[in-house]
């Protein structure tokens, strides 16, 4: 009875992964998941008429599926694909997370690269929103605002809440 017990909830697979140094596996298991919402950060805007627009409920997390049936389609503040290719700094610097400064799910760089590569082969639809840019973009300033010119596609970066997203636009020039 005095024998220390391991928590039962930890599965053998996870334990094995951790013990073998596979912590990245454990951490990034979340990358395939989506967040369905987050805790409200303010009580003053909860309740009554404010309720539905207050907290981060019903946010669509999966950025790349901008056409999901989720109500707040354009609000897909919370990002699942968070590797920002446009950064001139370290890849994990900013995860473009949700409108409230939080988000979930890491994505291994490899997976994001694969997703990006897949995306490149399809024409980007004007108006679609992504949370990462393909590689090799050129930042261009037009009429005081910034665009990213990536191959033949133009993206306009924007704050969607506190998150930075990129909407595909017609060539601005």
């Amino acid at each position: 009875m005095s024998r220390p017990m391991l928590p039962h909830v930890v599965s053998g697979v996870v334990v094995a992964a951790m013990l073998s140094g596979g912590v990245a596996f454990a951490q990034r298991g979340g990358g395939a998941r989506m967040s369905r919402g987050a805790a409200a950060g303010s009580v003053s805007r909860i309740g009554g008429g404010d309720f539905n627009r207050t907290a981060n409920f019903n946010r669509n997390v999966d950025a790349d599926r901008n056409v999901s049936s989720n109500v707040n389609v354009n609000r897909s503040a919370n990002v699942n694909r968070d590797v920002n290719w446009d950064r001139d700094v370290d890849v994990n610097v900013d995860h473009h997370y949700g409108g409230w400064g939080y988000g979930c799910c890491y994505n291994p760089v490899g997976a994001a690269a694969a997703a990006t590569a897949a995306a490149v082969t399809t024409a980007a639809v004007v108006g679609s929103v992504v949370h990462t840019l393909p590689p090799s973009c050129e930042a261009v300033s037009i009429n005081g605002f910034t665009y990213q010119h990536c191959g033949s596609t133009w993206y306009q970066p924007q704050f969607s809440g506190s998150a930075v997203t990129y909407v595909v636009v017609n060539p601005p020039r």
Partner: protein
Amino acid sequence: MGRYLRTVNAFQIRTQTTRDEVLADGQNIEFGAVVDMIVARPNRLRAEVTSDKQQRLYFDDGKTFSVWARRMNYYATVPAPATLRELADTLADRYNLELPVADLFYWGDTRNTEQIRGAMDIGPSQIDGVTCEHYAFRQDGADWQVWIQQGDYPLPRKLVITTLSDPARPKFTSVMTWNLAPSFNDAAFAFVPPKDARRIMLIQAPLGRDSQ
């Protein structure tokens, strides 16, 4: 507390926050952040939010609200309303952007108490070595608790919000450290974009949400 907060014209707080994010299968994942904020009522604010995910600075110099993503070096500006309370409303309603610890700009307002359906005084509690009174409230959509400093300075020292609309009941916590005699000058609230910063839009929330 609310009435007292209204009398504090300038303050600086540093708060450690945690927030649960609910995965699609209902698992809660907690993310932390630190917020440093200087406020000068009625309408000036500077807040820096540093989380595992983001680094954001928010400025209200009394005329213009700016948000700057420091690491990506994007920024956006919009006109600021007359008070921070209105700013919090405008940002949330129009831009789906929640100011950090936004409750500080609402408390002391009768509208809040209308939402409360139940209240309990739990008793004394120590937060960071300060004796507080611990209260628990219920309202539609949330249970929440606040720890208010005892004595002449009834400041909120801790806030916990449990969101009830999600069966996973994600939680937000904020533990606040106060400075009621902050030193600052006007420049603290003014955002001067770095030379290489790039301006982008702060996009408006879809109408459907706004009209609710």
